[in-house]
């Protein structure tokens, strides 16, 4: 472990490589986390099927590559298809659990996640698949820093989609309705907002974000039917750290999580990479609690 730290000190360029690659992964996590924050904030549902939507988006890309199309086209295609799926899932399952106990919605979305996993396993088999975008790698500093173009692309798309989402929520009619419903669903209903439609749109939007994210994952990493869980867990963490209704925070938390994870993996070894991330989560929560406790004292 100390040797590894020494390498980082002696060759800072490796740190640059780790941080940059970490940021690129982080952007993908952030994309899935936007969606989770949205659904959680607006509908008070923790969507356990988040990672499965990502996985489905990946399979959209794989199918499109199978038909000879460029996987980049899969990003919008996956978003549209997954939006429809989210809409359908809302009207078939989610609307029943929307105002209920959090536990029930967790169970319901957990159920959805299992169905989707098994469905994809039956249709595509359990093996790993990739969608090759046939893009090269950018090398900097004598090849010590390597940035796969597809990851750079994923990063920029994640940034663009994030920006679009912010503008959409601020400016568009539906976006305003979503925010109004998030603030007070009952008042929104009284004022003539069809909250059911707003919820359906929110859930669809979440699925669409995950779908786009999944298409990027298929291009940059690998896809198999059981890939979902890490994405659900990381989105959850990012949202917990960033707080609801804070898209800037989600982006920041996503990116720093990616970078921190990569450096921890290098220094402590890959086996402690996730442990480190969870430790970080605990630390953030403790720190938050401590800050809140101080505020409470102040109010006394």
């Amino acid at each position, binding site marked *: 472990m100390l040797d*590894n730290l020494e*390498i980082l000190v002696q*060759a800072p360029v*490796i740190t640059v*490589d*780790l941080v940059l*690659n*970490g940021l690129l*992964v982080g952007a993908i996590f952030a994309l899935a986390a936007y969606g989770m924050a949205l659904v959680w904030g607006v509908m008070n549902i923790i969507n356990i099927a988040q990672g499965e939507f990502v996985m489905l988006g990946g399979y959209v890309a794989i199918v499109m590559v199978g038909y000879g199309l460029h996987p980049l086209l899969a990003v919008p295609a996956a978003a549209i298809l997954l939006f429809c799926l989210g809409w359908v899932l809302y009207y078939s399952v989610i609307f029943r659990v929307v105002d209920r106990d959090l536990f029930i919605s967790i169970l319901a979305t957990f159920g959805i996640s299992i169905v989707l996993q*098994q469905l994809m*396993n*039956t249709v595509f*088999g*359990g*093996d*790993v*698949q*990739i969608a*090759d975008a046939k893009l090269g*790698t950018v*090398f900097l500093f004598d*090849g*010590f820093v*390597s940035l*796969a173009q597809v990851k750079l692309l994923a990063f920029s798309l994640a940034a663009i989609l994030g920006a679009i989402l912010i503008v959409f929520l601020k400016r568009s009619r539906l976006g305003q309705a979503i925010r109004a419903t998030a603030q007070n669903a009952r008042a929104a209903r009284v004022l003539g907002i069809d909250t059911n439609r707003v919820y359906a749109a929110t859930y669809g939007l979440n699925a669409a974000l995950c779908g786009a994210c999944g298409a990027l*994952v298929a291009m940059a*990493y*690998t896809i*198999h*039917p*059981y*890939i979902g*869980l*890490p994405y659900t867990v990381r989105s959850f963490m990012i949202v917990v750290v960033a707080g609801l209704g804070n898209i800037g925070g989600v982006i920041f938390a996503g990116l720093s999580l990616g970078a921190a994870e*990569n*450096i*921890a*993996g*290098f220094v402590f*070894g*890959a*086996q402690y*990479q*996730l442990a480190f991330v969870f430790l970080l989560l605990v630390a953030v929560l403790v720190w938050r609690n401590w800050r809140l406790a101080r505020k409470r004292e102040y109010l006394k």
Partner: protein
Amino acid sequence: MLHHRKLAIAVMTTACLPVATALAQSDETITLGAAVSLTGKYTTNGEHTQRGYDLAVSKINEAGGVKVGDKTYKLEVKYYDDESTPARGAELAERLIQQDGVQFMLGPYSSGITKAVAPVTEKHKIPMVEANGASRSLFTNGWQYIFATLSTSEQYLTGALTLAAENADKLGKKPEEMTVALAFENDPFSQDVRAGVLDDMEKLGMKVVIDDQLPRELNDMAATLTKTKALKPDLLIVSGHSKGAATAVRQINEMKVNVPILAMTHCDSADVIGKFGEGAEYTLCATQWSPTLSYSDDLFGSAGDFATLFEETYGYAPPYQAAESAAAVQVFADAFTRAGELDPQKVRDALSQTDMMTFYGQIKFDETGKNIAKPMALYQVLNGEYKVVSPSNFAETSAVVPRPSM
């Protein structure tokens, strides 16, 4: 040939017996029980397993069945789907033995499920020949009724180390000066492979510079590979099922990690050639079996003949999972004949004495039940094809070391 002669003798002996019994005998069958994964995450390999069993059963039945004592039996397999979960596998084994009265078991797919099924077969003293549980932890419990046709996991990559040592001079080094980076998934199978590799490295005097354990859910090895780039080991060994193989090949290319020797497991199930084309070149891959190996037997003919038959029947080239499964049925048939009766205990004892050549390789069990006669083979990806480069006496060609930097 021997098989045919035995069969001829069998036919003649039965002919001498009263006609009535001879007629009754031809319809009798021995039922083997198997819970394999037909749904869930092992579906693909579960199917390979089932097809291997089925092909051997139909081939044996076509050839007249199995001669036990003075009777001849047909074989059949009763299948259940274990849904890729160990608990279900154990439950179904119990059901096969207790409700269906099965007295001989074929193994499920994967070490994990085999480990759940074996205590059940032990409890009921039912012999099980398994072909898809390679974990060495299956053979350290003193179990008496489990027999495995395949090489166990700690042997998977030892060929790569031997090969590296043999080619050390090409890198301008002595074997004991070589450095090795290890990236193994944190699961029982991959950790067994790692233990075997570490043992062999110690014998050869090689030095570990990286020893990372990849979390099961990880699909990004960037941190480990960055370290590999910085430390420049002579050998990089990766094992993490097909997900690990695909991730490794993809990122090694993306990040231009230049290691002289790259060895891994599960290249074929990850289809690295199909997915990455040139990116997979020169990778060394461990394999249980290859159609190009020069093994053969009387039932299937050569390894190549088995491959042709399998492809004609199922429409794709047989992965080694199918081959080792077919061999498991052959082992049972051979043991039935040698036991001369269908008492599970007698068959178990006959199994423990197995020493036979099959298209899959030599099969001979040690006292723990694992096959100690067949070595692992090692492929290298050369010009977009898997070529066997080790063991050297069965190899098609010699390995290209070091990998030319791409």
